[in-house]
């Protein structure tokens, strides 16, 4: 569920089709840098009502989604 929300945010941020984003897609390949990632994480924080501390770098959309999911579990 988090992955779908994150993929939608990424697609919205880039103005591309959401289908193009898979769990294996790297942020780097999309041209998304660490500050873009924080902006999207902040939107997810608002939506999910949780605080997401970004301790380590996540390379793929799937990794970040799994990390956020582990926080909400």
């Amino acid at each position, binding site marked *: 569920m988090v992955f779908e929300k994150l993929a939608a945010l990424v697609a919205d941020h880039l103005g591309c089709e959401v289908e193009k984003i898979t769990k294996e897609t790297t942020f780097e390949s999309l041209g998304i840098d660490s*500050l873009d*990632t924080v*902006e999207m994480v902040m939107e997810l924080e608002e939506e999910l009502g949780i605080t997401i501390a*970004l301790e380590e770098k996540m390379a793929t959309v799937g990794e970040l989604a799994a990390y956020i999911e582990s926080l909400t579990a």
Partner: protein
Amino acid sequence: MNFEVIGTGHYAPENVVTNDDLAKFLDTSDEWISTRVGVRERRVCTTETTAELAYRASKNALEMAGTNPEELDLILCATISADDASPSLACNLQKLLGAECPAMDLNAACSGFIYMLETAAGFFARGTAKKVLVVGAERMSRLLNWNDRSTCVIFGDGAGAMVLSAGSSYLASKIYAKGNTDVIRIPHPQGMSPFYKNESEEPFVLMNGQETFKFAVNAMTKDVQEVIEKAGLTQEDIAYVIPHQANLRIIDSAKRKLSIPPERFCSNIERYGNTSAASIPILVDELNRDGKFKDNDKLVLCSFGGGLSSAACVLEWKCR
């Protein structure tokens, strides 16, 4: 009773360091720095002291105000990079100016300048000061690890000053702090006590960029809305937003969350980098000298940084 601004000034060291200059000894590039941070060049001290930067900025502000240093009732300096632990930067500055009034420093990191405006407002409210010099001055280059490409490319040196006189320009304000040592920290040098057992740390800027970004955007968005509301104004009433110049991406992100027209957000980070407590008075002075402010314009100043701290205020500009 609070104050109005009767003079502004700034000064930055002559030595210009471009992103290409940094790329000569760091694995970085103009493209990386300008897209991630928004800085193209910064000023870096070679021989100037923090007190000299403060002095030159103050002279410019006093000249505009038509005020002699002897007329000052108080000197307030916001800094985290004073030349000496003692005397304070304010006392060093007082000596250079030849002023004869109380002088003191305050550390609220990048939020220091607005914290000092708030302090000044208290003196005016008690009627104990008629003319106050408020300065933000930093030699950040002293506090940087020049081998760390994630931090040293961001900062620069400089100073900005305002001369305040009794008035009613300070319409609303907010100062905030949330003690935290994980997001931004600059350790002091350890000293040489033979009795102190803790491991020593390098006395340079440590920063978690992503968490800093998050705090900054949230603080700026919230504080700006709060002070506008406190002043009984709407976002549409604001002529200019003058944010702390930490990172252009922070300003862009907050801009999207607020309903103030985007062209009213001011910036000069491209030329100075992040000058901590000096960034707001430098930018205010540049805009003022460019003739951007009209009488009764409502300006929002806002800042955020180490502490963690944040601050914001609404100033009603008075043309003189």
